[in-house]
């Protein structure tokens, strides 16, 4: 009890010094948590990509399309279990003032097959059946429905950009993907409905943006080859890739940066440890008389030790709490939404994992205390015999 009072008074006494230590540590915690958040988001993203789902698009560029029959042809290839296809549809909800500036990821998909290729989805089979029968029906991701305040039965007025015009679409159901990815943030209506509205002369008639197919897991890479081989002699060449490899390719430059950040994080931690240990050494030297005095009052070596370590522990805890709140503010509330908005397909979630916060706090605690063991030991060895002479 008296030790805690003493520790608190020590921390309060040199406010500036305590504050700079706390700030420095919490900054390191922020860096560490940022790094952790990135790698966590990345792992989550990878985990939520399938090896056995293959995307196929126009080899020339994503922006060009494929003929609709390609989906059927891929579906018929050996090793392919089910193929589905979709068209990207750029548009915004103009029916609701609040939703106008929000990004809606709209796809025109083949409602008959879409969810067969995305089996990690939870939905109501009745709603699915209705969707398949409703030409302008929409299945919307639950979290999108929540954000846009959509309810089953609502008519949503979409103003198309790539496909101009006003589209009155009806929400008939919601779904939720077990994978927290882009797939869990979509607004899906029927490709047939879109296609039927296009003029025969429209070059986009009977064209699709991509095909997604579930394939045999064991030899998915060979199937990828086979798909592209299959169209080798056609006028439109394809490029296929498993979902997982697509992400890895997209992020390949990034992984190197992750390593660098990792190393920087470790260095920062070590530097903080050394700085704190140094600062505690100075403090111990400054306080050698005080420790001597405390010993005459019956403080044991362990008491003195715990006084020094206790101060570091308390500083570390304060810094961890502060660092955590700064991180939540900076990562979860500022950076996170920006990243999700701009890179949502790679980082659908960008939040500080609680487990990382716990790891950060305990790492800081372990590091700072272990670095302070030497000064603490020195403090405990303060020799009253020598102190008595020191003043003469």
């Amino acid at each position, binding site marked *: 009890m008296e030790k805690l009072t003493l520790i608190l008074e020590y921390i309060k006494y040199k406010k500036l010094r305590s504050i700079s230590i706390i700030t420095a540590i919490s900054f390191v915690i922020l860096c560490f948590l940022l790094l952790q958040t990135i790698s966590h988001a990345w792992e989550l993203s990878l985990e939520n990509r399938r090896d056995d789902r293959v995307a196929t698009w126009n080899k020339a560029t994503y922006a060009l399309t494929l003929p609709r029959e390609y989906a059927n042809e891929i579906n018929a290839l050996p090793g392919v279990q089910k193929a589905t296809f979709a068209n990207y549809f750029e548009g915004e909800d103009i029916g609701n003032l609040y939703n106008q500036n929000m990004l809606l990821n709209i796809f025109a998909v083949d409602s008959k097959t879409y969810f067969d290729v995305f089996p990690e989805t939870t939905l109501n089979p009745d709603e699915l059946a209705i969707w398949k029968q409703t030409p302008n029906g929409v299945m919307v991701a639950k979290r999108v429905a929540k954000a846009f305040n959509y309810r089953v039965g609502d008519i949503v007025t979409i103003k198309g950009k790539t496909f101009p015009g006003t589209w009155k679409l009806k929400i008939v159901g919601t779904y939720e993907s077990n994978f927290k990815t882009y797939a869990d943030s979509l607004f899906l209506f029927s490709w047939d409905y879109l296609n039927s509205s296009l003029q025969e002369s429209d070059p986009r008639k009977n064209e699709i943006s991509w095909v997604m197919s579930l394939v045999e897991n064991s030899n998915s890479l060979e199937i990828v080859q086979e798909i592209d081989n299959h169209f080798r002699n056609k006028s439109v060449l394809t490029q296929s890739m498993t979902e997982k490899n697509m992400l890895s390719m997209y992020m390949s430059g990034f992984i190197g940066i992750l390593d660098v950040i990792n190393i920087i994080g470790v260095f920062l931690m070590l530097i903080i440890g050394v700085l704190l240990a140094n600062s505690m050494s100075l403090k111990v030297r400054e306080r050698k*008389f005080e420790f001597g005095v405390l010993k005459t009052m*019956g403080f044991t070596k362990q008491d003195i030790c715990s006084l020094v370590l206790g101060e570091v522990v308390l500083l570390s805890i304060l810094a961890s709490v502060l660092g955590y709140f700064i991180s939540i503010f900076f990562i979860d509330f500022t950076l996170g939404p920006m990243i999700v908005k701009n890179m949502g397909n790679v980082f659908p979630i960008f939040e500080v994992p609680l487990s990382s916060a716990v790891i950060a706090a305990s790492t800081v605690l372990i590091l700072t205390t272990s670095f302070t063991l030497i000064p603490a030991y020195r403090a405990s060895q303060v020799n009253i015999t020598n102190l008595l002479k020191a003043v003469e």
Partner: protein
Amino acid sequence: MTNNTALVTEKTNTIIKLENVSKVFSNKQEENRVLQNISFDICEGDFIAIVGPSGSGKSTLLNILVGFDTPTFGEVTLHNKKISDLKSKQLTNWRKENLGFVFQSHNLIPVLSVYQNVELPLLLNNVPKSERFTTVLNTLEVVGLKEKFFNRPAQLSGGEEQRVAIARAMVHNPSIIIMDEPTGSLDRKNANHILNTLKIINQKYNTTIVMVTHDVKATEYAKSVIDLDKGSC
């Protein structure tokens, strides 16, 4: 030395007993005999001044008295228990309850207020809060610093600091207060003030005081004087 035990009549109120204590500091080249065959008892109510020139072993003796240092020969007894038989925990507990210690300077914890400094020994002895407050204030009144209880040590003069240190040394009603040159860094006027305070404490509360000093004036306040210049006593 072997027959000594028969000669010593145990006084019930003996706090510290030294028997044939010698201290030799030795390194490779030479042996430095600092204390030689010192024997004396410190009893309740004593006010002892230990004098001697610089280097005569005064501080060494104080250290040995309360077990911060061990004698090369001889035996120290605290409340009839040999220090050499005590476990380190028992020794620290003894200090906690029975000892008040005042250094020449640097006595106060600068981060604590005067009140908190004086309160420390009470906290360590688990005195309840309600009692602590009045005890601390009463003790500060004895040394004449009641009105400064809220100040930090840095806001006190050297003399005031020493008086607070004395208040802290006596606040938990210890068996003995030991001081190493308590007036050593003070001017005459402040030194006299301290010495008067000590005398009052000794007379009024029967507090046992052992004080190292090389101030001749200080010895006049003590009831008995041990002169280390003579090598032994």
